[in-house]
């Protein structure tokens, strides 16, 4: 089974939020409450247990490429964010029950019947994607529409996207398509365009994302970390020291057993 993923091209996102709605409808997710945020046109504000696609709206005092407007240095960026299905997934690596697994599509999937709601995954996601729901206490996030993929259907968000800003497909093809798109945009004068998380080389901390993005400003502008790292990776040194400590503990235990034996033998 080839690896599947999303390539989200933010330069053609029109902020319609059809992805948010299609996701909630397909997955039967509850609303996040009816609160006016005052943050541009964004009222769901962030990804969470009941929002698995989220469109960010960024009003910034910077002109976009060759765009011309009487507003001067201004542009409005929109970006549909989602779980990245990382190659090194912090949530999966931290899950003590084995509830979070990697599927045959190479996506990261939470099995709700196994999840015990410990929340380790929540703090281990470098993107702040996964979250626990208040009512059942379990961890929830994008499933890459695992149920739809099983039936050869693309994920609901990609299906609903009217401009194909969200592209779903084989990762190898998506990466080629994305690189071509960046070149094309550079030729058209949008030299700021770049790929975020498309490969391990540019994002070693996650070893690449199965849901990657084309952006035109720094990751932080989109509320994305500039250098996301799966906690298990970052704590390599800590693991090493923990390993030394572990050996010490084993040695002590062995010594204790040995002394017990000795005492019992006497």
């Amino acid at each position: 089974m080839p690896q599947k993923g999303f390539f989200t091209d933010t330069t053609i996102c029109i902020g319609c939020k059809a992805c948010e709605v299609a996701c909630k409808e397909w997955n039967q997710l509850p609303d996040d409450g009816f609160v006016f945020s005052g943050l541009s046109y964004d009222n769901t504000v962030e990804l969470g247990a009941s929002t698995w696609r989220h469109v960010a709206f960024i009003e910034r005092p910077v002109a976009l490429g060759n765009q011309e407007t009487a507003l001067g240095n201004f542009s409005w960026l929109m970006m549909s964010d989602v779980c990245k299905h990382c190659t090194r997934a912090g949530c999966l690596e931290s899950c003590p029950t084995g509830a979070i697994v990697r599927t045959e599509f190479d996506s990261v999937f939470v099995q709700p019947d196994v999840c015990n709601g410990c929340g380790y995954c929540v703090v281990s996601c470098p993107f702040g994607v996964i979250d626990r729901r208040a009512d059942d206490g379990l961890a929830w996030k994008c499933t890459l529409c695992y149920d739809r993929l099983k039936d050869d259907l693309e994920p609901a968000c990609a299906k609903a996207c009217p401009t194909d800003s969200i592209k779903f497909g084989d990762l190898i093809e998506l990466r080629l398509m994305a690189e071509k798109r960046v070149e094309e945009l550079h030729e058209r004068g949008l030299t700021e365009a770049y790929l975020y998380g498309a490969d391990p080389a540019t994002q070693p901390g996650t070893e690449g994302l199965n849901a990657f993005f084309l952006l035109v400003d720094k990751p932080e502008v989109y509320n994305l970390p500039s250098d996301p790292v799966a906690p298990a990776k970052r704590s390599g040194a800590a693991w090493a020291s923990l390993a030394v400590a572990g050996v010490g503990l084993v040695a002590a235990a062995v010594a204790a057993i040995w002394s017990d034996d000795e005492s019992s033998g006497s």
Partner: protein
Amino acid sequence: MAECHPVGFRWAMEAKARGATLIHVDPRFTRTSAVADIHVPIRVGSDIVFLGGIVRYILENERYFHDYVVNYTNAPVIISPEFRDTEDLDGLFSGWNQDEHRYDQSSWRYSDEPADPTLQHPRSVFQILKRHYSRYTPAMVEDACGVPERLFLRVAETLCHNSGRDRTSAFCYAVGWTQHTVGAQYIRTASIIQLLLGNIGRPGGGILALRGHASIQGSTDIPTLFNLLPGYLPMPTAGVDVSLKAYLDAHTAGSGWWSELPKYAVSLLKAYFGEAANANNDFCFDHLPFINGNHSHMSTVADMADGKLKGYFVLGENPVVGSMNGRLQVEGLRRLDWLVVRDLALIETADFWRDAPEKFPTEVFFFPAAAHTEKDGSFTNTQRLLQWHHQAIDPPGDCRSDLDFILDLGRRLKALYASSTEAKDRPIQQVTWDYTNAESVLAEINGFGVTDRRPISRFTELKDDGTTACGCWIYCGSFADNKNQPARRKPGHEQHWVAPEWGWSWPNNRRILYNRASADTKGRPWSERKKYVWWNPDAKTWEGYDTPDFILDRPPDYRPSEDAKNLERISGIDPFIMNVDGKGWIFAPTGLLDGPLPTHYEPLESAIENPLYKQQLNPALLEWRRRDNPYHRPFDDPRFPYVLTTYRLTEHHTAGGMSRWLSWLAELQPEMFCEVSPELAEEKGLRNGGWATITTARAQIEARVLVTPRMPALRVGRRTIHQIGLPYHWGSKGLVRGDSANDLIAFVADPNVSIQESKALTGNIEPGRRRS
């Protein structure tokens, strides 16, 4: 377009991906602007100055498509010597009658002099046009519209550069563009530009009206409009159209396609009244309803408030929220004996009585309706394309489709009146009512031979002798071969690029109207790149990728003789066959009540004086001067110093009936808000996320505040104009509630189409919540 029509906007985005330049003109920086190449913020209500400026640019710089303009438009036509332009009369055309509040249009006529192909005659349309827009200069555009001269010139140049033999440009608008006292003239100005640039009747050209709901195009074709019968036949007028003969004599043209009107009118009467309709009884012409004035929405509501109406049906609309002056709307509903509302949810129009302070007599009947997935039917889109939708699931509970409801109502009325002997009940007794399902309705709309019941396949088969029946002549062929043509879904990649086998478009499955204009005077494509339909001299026929919009065997070199009549008068170079002269009308000698050429008038309520003429307002605009519909001063009203404009958000659907009751949509835009510039926020002490109260003479509403540079203050002349943006989706019911922006707006309308002016008015804003 991205805001109101995100799904249709995918095609604009695809064009952009293929190299098209997107230009967006809007007071706000919207989701459309975000992806456009050029965004032009404009003062609301100043569009004719902007577009007129483009007309002037085209003429002054000789950028018009010469061969197209000379041959296919009325630019060379000489106008009557009695005609006086707004330049001569300071904002009025000749013929204005102040007492009757209307124009006598006789001086706008063509003169009998031969047309001047050199376009030099001082009374030629071309020269009149040149003089009419001579003062619409880039500097005037800057002063009146608040659009920097440089930006305006970039737009004008881009448009000209992208038009001609090899290239075409399209105008797309959402219906907010029509919601002005000069709304029809906005579209006319765009039409003039498109005719001058040769962008009509050609692939990639045109003016695309993106309608407010699915199938609003369908509801003008098979009209819900008071003054039209299906297929744009005029509704008969009481005391004027006293017999079928009088009606046909008055409305049948002597040349062009409307010379065929009797065939369409008689076939329609046969579809309505079946066997009862025959030549001896005028085909039951007197069974039709007759109009005796303006019965458009606002007139009807005003009559309602005056106690002149007993009952009212509201199907799939929510006028208490969606229409102007909500207080007057509610007042109207309170004076009714009965009200029937059919909708998906218990909308404000159905539930307005619940929180009323005092009792009133209206009896309200609410019927839950079925959604489009729960019924069969068709949608007609802006391209006149009919697409069938099949029922996927049964409607829940007591919900029923409008078709079920109307069918049942008709059957019950027929049963009630079956034994009546009164003449007034004969229309109900004799109207044919044998529909079984949605397809059987389409079959009647398509038409059939009365004796053999065989479906008609083209409207040229229709007769005026009662042997054919047809519910809407332009839809002839939609059920050809006894097959539901709109239900065709052959994928685009299995056919050529015009994709004629996807759905069905009227007339005759034609995808581009007036496409004869895509070929030159000799019938050859203007260019290989823009090849569409052409004359085949060997086969002696018009052919191409689309159904040619012309008489198929009429050669390009055909010229009518002096005594030719009706269709014979259409020459080989007359692409605009619906017009009596076959030409595209740059100058409209008839048909518009407020002038033959679009002229800038300020909105009824404006921040400024008309910078071009002494005449401030459209002289012919429709007003409702009454105590419950007060107006502000035309300009500089010190009580209302700011400009207001209303609009839709992607997240909600019009008056909210389809979105405010759905959590997934409601959470995306949960509260009524207003958009203001940082400068205005500073001036008035408005805080982002806080509250503001917006006031007009009609109402006071409260809204959350969104402070954003996307709502720029504009420099107009020596003044700064602040515009306040108001989405209009909220009301007092539903999951998310809020005040209705439309409560602020007065009844005032365009004279041609009775559409309200809701996109440009004045008001005041103060921080904090409203008091009552």
